[in-house]
Structure formats: C-alpha cells, structure tokens
C-alpha cells in the first residue's frame, strides 16, 4: 500500500528530489532548502512533506497554484511535485459526499513551523478535473490553512501531467489519442479527407508515416496540385503536374485494396496514355466503384451513389421539383475526353462506374461481368453508343443518364432493371427492349415518345414531360401503350401544364396506383382530376400532391374539392369493379396538410372503415413517391408510428389495414 510505504522508499524519492534541486540546472538560483516548500524529515517514524502558505507559494519558483475542480467544485490548490502524496482539507472533503477510509498506518506530516500533523483518513478516487479532463487522485485528509488541496507527485504521476516550473503551469498530459486506434481505422478516416491532407499526415510521427498508404478510397482531383479554380478546364501545365503527382503517389502507395477511386480533373486527349496507366492500376487494386469526371467541376452525384433499400424511385422526384437553375456549360465537343471502355477490360471487380463529361467509346469485344451500376452525367452519346455500352454489360442493374446529350433515338436493352433519364437533351424516342426492366423513370423538358417493345416485368413508371403537348400524350397514346402489368404510375405536371390537363383520356388497364404531382401549380382545381378516375378501372390508390411555395403564404382550403373528388372516387362506375381505396393529398411539403383541413373532414375520412378511405401523408419533398410511401408505411408498422403526428398515424394505420386485407 502506498500509505504504508516503507521508509527507505520515501527517503529515496526524497533524495532524488534533493539531487534535482541541487543539479546544475538550478545552480543559478539555488533555493534555500529550509525556506522552500519542502522539508525533509528522516527519523524513526513515517514522515512526509510539509505544507506551505500562499505567500511562499507565490515566491517560490518550484510550486504552482491554481483553481481546479474536484468533484466539480472549484478548489484552490497547490501543485507540489515535492510532495509525495496529495491532501485535502476536511472543510472541502465534507462536500465530497462519501466517507473516507482509514489508513492502516497513519502518517506524520511535518510543517514548516516544525510541528507535525497526523493524517489518518484518505478519500480514495476523487475526480479531479484538469483542462476538462477527468483524473483521479487519492486525497489524504489534512488540516491545511491556505489551500483547499495539495496535489502531489502521486497525482502528477498517475495522470501523466508535467509541471512547468518556469511558467508555473501544468501541462496537459501528453497521451497520443490516436494510439489506441488500429491502423485500418485511421486509414479509413484519412480516406475521407483531401488526398493532399492525408499525405501530409505522414510527417506527424513515425506511426503515421505510411498510414495514408492504405486508404480504401482515393480521390484524385485538381485540388491536390494546387489548382483551385472552379473551371471546367485547366491549363496543360497543371494537367502535366497532376499526372506527375499521381505517379509519385502510387510509388508510395502500398494499399492492397482500393474500394473506391475518384478522379476529377479536366484532361486533354493527349494525356490518354497517362490515363491508361491509371486505369491499369485500377484493375490491380480491385476497385469496386470508379468515378471519372473529366472536368474540374464537381458533379452533385453523391446522393445517387448508394441507393439505400428501395429508394430508387424516390431520388429523382426531387430533381423534378428543383430544376437546375444554371444550365451546364459544356466544353467544346472536340475537347471532350474520349473514354474507351476497352480500358476497363481488366477491371474484374468493378461494380459501379460513374462517368462525367466525356465521350464514351464502346467496345465490341469487351465483356463486363461485374458492373452493376452505370451512371452517366453530361456525357455525349452518339447514335448506337449507349446500345454498344449496354451490350458489354452482362449484369447491369441500374442505368442513370443525367444531363447528357443524347441521339434522337435510343434503345434500352440488356439486363438492366432500373433506368432513369434526368434532363437530358436531344432524345426524341425511346424504345424499351429490356426483359428485366422493372422500373423506369424519366424527366424531360419536352415531349418524348415511348415504345414499350419488350418489357414483360415493368411495374413502376415515373414520367415527367414538360410542354403543353405532353399531358394529352401521357393520358392518350402513352396510356394506350403502357404495358398491362404496370402497377404504378407517377405523373408530374408543372406550371401551365395543369391547364392542359385532359378531360378525356385513354384507359389505363391495370393501373392500381397513380400519383399526380402538381408542381408550382398554385390554384389547380382538383376536381379536374375526376376523368382520371374513370380512366383507371382498377385504381386502388390515388395520390395527389400539390407543391407550391405560394400556398404557404396564402393557403387554399381544398376541403370542398377533396370532398367532391372523394365522392367521385367512391361512386361505382360501370367499369369500377374494385374498392376505391385511397386519396392522399399532400399539400405543401413541410407543412402538415392536415392542419389546413377542418377536423370534421379529416375525421369523416378516417371514420370510413370498410376499405374505402382516404389518406394523406405528411411527407418531405424527397420522399413523396409512391414507392417511398409504401416503404414508409411498411416501416411504420413496426416502430415508427410513435414518431408521427397523431393524425397521420391514424391515416397510415388505415392504409395498413387495407393492404393486409387486400
């Protein structure tokens, strides 16, 4: 036990102290041993250090005083490296709230006055906070006059603190926080910062020297060469430097596996051999996700990289709400980097490929077995090129084409299950000839014609076509062509398009879910939706979503309209065989629509119990697709219900009842 420390040991510690005090370093100002804080007592009993008073503490260069916290109470204390043990006055100790332990062998402590005080009790494990760190000290109870507590060598030792005698400050214990973390965790942290910063950590200390060299994600961009302009292109000097730096990097890089590699820099065609070498290393590292952006501008694609669960149908509805304000400026066509798919022939572990701002050259012989996701943004596609790419991908799952320049006619073929077109240009006709295609969505600023040549398993369609001619097309020819097995359709209209909402429409054969999204359409009369009900004989779910910022300022009470629509929805018509189940109206994202409806309307909706009920959902902008709604409800069944506002909860529960009975 420390408290019954053999005399010999105490004396030896003291003598170390003494020898220090008389070492040459102190010789310039030799302290007087009698007047200092320490007086050594060596006689028959266990005796320890003396105390000091405040004046002496200030005068002495060997002690530090200050206010620290013990059990969150401020105490004025003395940090005394000359004292072996730590002490606390009974007056402070009373507030600790626990009883001290008795010491087996009591101490006699000498004071500068020459008398002795006995210490019999000790408070163990007292929490001392220093620089917001908690440390623990064993404090002997002792009647001290000028200080609340004295922290001695034992405490300094136990919490690695060092005392700076010159500045009279305590230095925070120097413990390398990162030392406990395994290398791979540190590398994965480094992988999240700019590659330049990551490499810079190699100079921190020996352990960090090669930590960066096993990062699972590499992001090469023009920033690492100090070119920070937000321009599409960059001067040849910087391109040259970029390749030099990449080469230097790979010489140091020891990584066994790179999961994700991203490159973002404008490259001219003359650097294609350097680029080829980079692609070669990709197959070497077993890259799974490859992002190649041949411009210096970041493409906001991160949202799409890892679609979670069943979110495919949610993500781009958001896009149709917020049209990119600035049209992207393309570099001149002949300056586009020509990316040859052939370069990926060895990339056998590649799962996702993101290509931006380039021309893609398909290869007839190439076979990509592992590729599941292909994401093209601002790519120039010429006639036949996309078809060529698709024929090389034997296991493609998702195809996303965004802001691309497309040929007049495209044919989607192959194994792809989900296809998404977002604001691309040039396309007039799409032929869908993909036997595994389950979901299809498209956003165009003009009318595009669809041919459903061979889509036996297509179920979900989301369509947004701008222009006055689009509405009649969707509810006319498109409706006729839509394959019978399509269950769910989401149609977006915006601005003046709503005024072209057709009064007569073609029959949607098997459609069970229909969502109509009116975007930036302020005073649309919902009753106009009525013809839809006649056109969809087996419709079970109808969601009408009206999104408009204006309605926040000047809300329209749609209760009457809703009532009319509800009646219509529920009235059996000659071809209406099944129960009409749901109308949901999301009025304004982020505003509880139910708050705008009078309670009696809402409760009358809720009161319906036989499977014909209306439902509304409070949804966020990003999440108002049908698919999303369904997932949400499904999820809500188990846990989330308490989180939802009460009214909405009831609505959702009704829907659950329906889906169970159905």
């Amino acid at each position, binding site marked *: 036990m420390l408290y019954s420390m053999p005399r010999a040991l105490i004396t030896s510690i003291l003598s170390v102290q003494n020898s220090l005090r008389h070492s040459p370093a102190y010789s310039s100002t030799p302290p007087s041993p009698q007047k200092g804080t320490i007086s050594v007592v060596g006689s028959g009993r266990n005796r320890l250090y003396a105390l000091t008073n405040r004046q002496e503490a200030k005068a002495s260069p060997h002690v530090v005083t200050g206010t620290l916290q013990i059990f969150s109470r401020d105490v004025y204390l003395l940090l005394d490296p000359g004292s072996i043990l730590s002490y606390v006055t009974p007056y402070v100790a009373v507030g600790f709230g626990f009883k001290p332990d008795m010491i087996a062998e009591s101490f006699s402590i000498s004071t500068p006055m020459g008398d002795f005080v006995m210490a019999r009790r000790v408070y163990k494990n007292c929490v001392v906070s220093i620089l917001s760190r908690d440390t623990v000290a064993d404090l002997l109870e002792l009647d001290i006059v000028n200080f609340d507590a004295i922290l001695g060598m034992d405490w300094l030792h136990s919490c690695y603190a060092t005392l700076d005698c010159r500045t009279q400050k305590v230095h925070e214990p120097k413990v390398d926080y990162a030392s406990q973390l395994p290398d791979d*965790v540190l590398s994965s942290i480094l992988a999240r910062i700019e590659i330049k910063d990551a490499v810079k950590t190699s100079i*921190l200390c020996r352990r960090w020297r090669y930590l960066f060299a096993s990062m699972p994600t590499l992001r090469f961009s023009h920033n690492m060469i100090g070119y920070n302009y937000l321009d599409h292109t960059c001067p040849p000097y910087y391109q040259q430097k970029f390749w030099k730096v990449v080469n230097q990097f790979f010489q*140091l890089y020891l990584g066994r596996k790179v999961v994700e590699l991203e490159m973002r820099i404008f490259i001219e065609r003359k650097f294609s051999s350097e680029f080829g070498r980079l692609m070669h290393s990709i197959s070497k590292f077993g890259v799974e996700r490859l992002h190649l952006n041949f411009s210096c501008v970041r493409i906001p694609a991160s949202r799409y990289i890892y679609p979670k669960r069943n979110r495919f149908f949610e993500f781009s509805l958001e896009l149709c709400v917020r049209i990119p304000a600035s049209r992207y400026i393309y570099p001149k066509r002949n300056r586009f980097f020509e990316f040859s798919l052939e370069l990926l022939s060895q990339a056998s572990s590649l799962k996702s490929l993101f290509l931006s701002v380039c021309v893609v050259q398909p290869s007839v012989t190439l076979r990509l077995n592992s590729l599941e996701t292909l994401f093209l943004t601002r790519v120039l596609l010429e006639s036949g090129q996309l078809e060529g790419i698709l024929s090389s991908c034997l296991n493609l799952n998702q195809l996303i084409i965004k802001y691309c320049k497309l040929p007049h006619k495209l044919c989607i073929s192959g194994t792809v299950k989900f296809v998404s077109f977002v604001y691309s240009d040039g396309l007039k006709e799409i032929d869908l000839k993909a036997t595994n295609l389950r979901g299809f969505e498209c956003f165009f600023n003009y009318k595009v014609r669809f041919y459903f040549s061979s889509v036996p398993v297509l179920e979900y369609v989301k369509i947004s076509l701008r222009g006055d001619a689009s509405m009649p097309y969707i509810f006319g020819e498109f409706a006729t062509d839509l394959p019978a097995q399509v269950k769910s359709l989401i149609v977006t209209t915006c601005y003046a398009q709503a005024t072209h909402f057709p009064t007569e429409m073609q029959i949607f054969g098997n459609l069970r879910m229909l969502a109509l999204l009116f975007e930036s359409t302020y005073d649309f009369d919902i009753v106009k939706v009525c013809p839809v009900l006649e056109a969809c004989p087996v419709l079970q779910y109808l969601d009408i979503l009206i999104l408009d910022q204006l309605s926040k300022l000047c809300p329209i009470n749609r209760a009457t309209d809703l009532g009319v629509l509800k009646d219509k929805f529920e009235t059996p018509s000659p071809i209406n065989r099944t129960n009409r189940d749901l109308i949901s109206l999301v009025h304004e994202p982020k505003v509880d629509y139910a708050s705008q409806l009078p309670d009696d309307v809402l409760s009358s909706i809720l009161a319906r119990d036989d499977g014909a009920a209306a439902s509304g959902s409070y949804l966020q902008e990003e999440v108002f697709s049908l698919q999303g709604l369904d997932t949400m409800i499904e999820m809500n069944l188990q846990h989330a219900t308490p989180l939802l506002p009460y009214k909405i909860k009831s609505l959702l529960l009704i829907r659950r009842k329906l889906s169970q009975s159905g």
Partner: protein
Amino acid sequence: MVKLKSNDDKEFEVEEAAVIQSEMIKNMIEDGCATSVIPLPNIDSKTLIKVIEYLNKHINMGKAAETGEEDDLKEFDEQFVNMGWEELFDVIMAANYLNIHELMELCCQSAADRLKNKSVRAVREMLKITNDLTEEEEQEIINDAPWAFEGPEIDDTVN
C-alpha cells in the same frame, strides 16, 4: 431486452431492436449466444452509455428516413459527435468492435472533418502526437511527396 456488461462491470439493458444494429451482437443473438449478459471487455461504461444512446436514437433510422424525421436525426448526429477527440476515438473503437456500421461512418466522418485543412502542427497538437521523426526523416518524407507540402497551410487553429 439484451444485457450488456462494460469492462468496469456495469450492466446495461438495451432493446433488442436497438442492439441488433451491431453486427457482432446480431450474430451472437442469431447464434443463440446472447441468452445471458454479453460481456464487452473492450468498452468502458462511459463509452457504452454513449453507444447505447446512439443505438436507441437510431432504432428507427430506416423509417425515419422516410418520414421526415431525418432532419431531427441529423441534428442528433451533429450533437452526438460533438465531443473531445479522446471520447470520439473511444466511441470509434467501440463501434469498430461492435461492428456498428453507421456509427462508425458518423464518427470517422467527424474525425475527418476535424482534420480537414489543418496544418501539421495543429494536427499534432490536437491528437497529442509526439513527433518522433528525425529531421532527416522529415526531409525524406517531404521529398517523397513534395506536392503535398506545397502551398500555404490553411488552418493552424486547434479545436
């Protein structure tokens, strides 16, 4: 309910739905090894409390994403990672051990955000790293990747 025991012998009861976010414990439960208390010899009670706080909040994460609770959760996450380096690393260690992917992501990202644009001096100070490299070694490192040490050091503040 699943009982967890920290290395300082404190027991915590956690809902199974929350605790299965940990792949490790999920596997244990599936294998039927979680009938009594699960001892976690690498995690102290202070860290475990933090982790359980996270697990309980994220119990409904999947649904929250669909219901507009996402902002709320984001706010919680921001608050959650608002802790000192030492604590953060403790949580990372715990998340790594328990194999809680989302927590690991969150904390590593937070650590990375704090290191972003920092000068070498600032990083050393923040992480309490003692430089044990000789001057020659330092020079060698700079020579290996001169591009990384070019340009002005952006952020020299420590926090």
